[in-house]
């Protein structure tokens, strides 16, 4: 019973550890903006702590570089369970615009299991606050999977068709690779 109470308190008081593993500091600045009076994350109980051993959530920023990957992994393993990893920004989410660079291994999920992504470059402080609120269960998600958009197939008149049916029905079939010779 006490354990259930303690688990419920995780959403009321989340101590975050901020780890920048090679980013440009844009998302750093936006994360620190969230702790300023204008956006005030402390009213949700979110506090910045200095040591990963005290933290519940890790705010990762910057891609996982080859040089910092080991340090990032050690910081993650230093956190006591239950823990959350929130990847902030487009670099942490997949490597950003530098995903194929020689120094970048990719997004942070190459090194840690990520629980939440907050895309943006950098995400606004409101977006980060929204992300933290979603992670803590205070708010629901605002994005949902968009159904794939399929352009309706309309019949195109085909010239020199050899009497074949108009190209409307094969939405997924194999079409002739070579054009037919004109008569």
């Amino acid at each position, binding site marked *: 019973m006490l354990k259930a109470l303690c688990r419920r308190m995780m959403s009321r008081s989340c101590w975050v550890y901020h780890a920048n593993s090679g980013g440009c500091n844009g998302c750093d600045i936006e994360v620190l903006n969230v702790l300023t009076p204008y956006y005030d994350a402390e009213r949700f109980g979110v506090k910045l702590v200095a040591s990963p051993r005290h933290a519940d959530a890790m705010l990762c920023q910057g891609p996982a570089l080859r040089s910092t990957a080991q340090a990032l992994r050690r910081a993650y393993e230093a956190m006591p369970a239950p823990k959350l990893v929130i990847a902030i920004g487009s670099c942490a989410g*997949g490597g950003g615009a530098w995903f194929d660079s020689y120094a970048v291994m990719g997004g942070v999920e190459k090194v840690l299991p990520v629980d939440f*992504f907050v895309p943006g*470059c950098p995400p606004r402080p409101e977006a980060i606050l929204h992300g933290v609120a979603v992670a803590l269960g205070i708010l629901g998600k605002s*994005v949902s999977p968009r159904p794939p958009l*399929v352009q309706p197939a309309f019949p195109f008149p085909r010239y020199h068709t050899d009497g074949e049916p108009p190209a409307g029905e094969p939405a997924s079939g194999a079409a002739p690779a070579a054009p037919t010779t004109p008569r």
Partner: protein
Amino acid sequence: MSLTSKLKEAWIGLSAGTVTLPYPLAPHPPGPGFRGRPVFDAARCIGCGGCASNCPAREILIYDPCQELRVIRYLGRRCTSCGRCAEVCPEKAITMSEAFELATDRLSDLEQRLTLFMGSCQRCGRCFAAPTPLDALKLTGYRVDDLEAGRWVCASRSAPPGEPAADVEIEL
């Protein structure tokens, strides 16, 4: 630091009230000109692939399963909202919306996928030499980006994937 200056500092802070925005409980729209997530409109898209060629993070991938179909996949995870795709689109099919509340635990929520029906060239399918350098940038031909793995392959083929890449013969 004298005592009076500290008292004055405390008084200034206290008398300013609270400047905290009621943000998650009340919306706080961004200012004009803010670029959020791009939104793709399949009805206007002509499938030229200019957006994919111009994306600096290689977020927009194109795959042609056959001659009549082109599948465009926007991944959304590495998007920096630079707006180059919207700027280069000839049909204004991409608009930069103001959506910034994009936090999610599943990356498939951020994806947009368009399946387009392409008309074929009257004479030789889709393989034709690029008339200008600008057209060469658009990588005409069959695009073969790796959609499942999310990998950009900067190449195009003259025949659909799975078929031998022989040039087509034209007989007049």
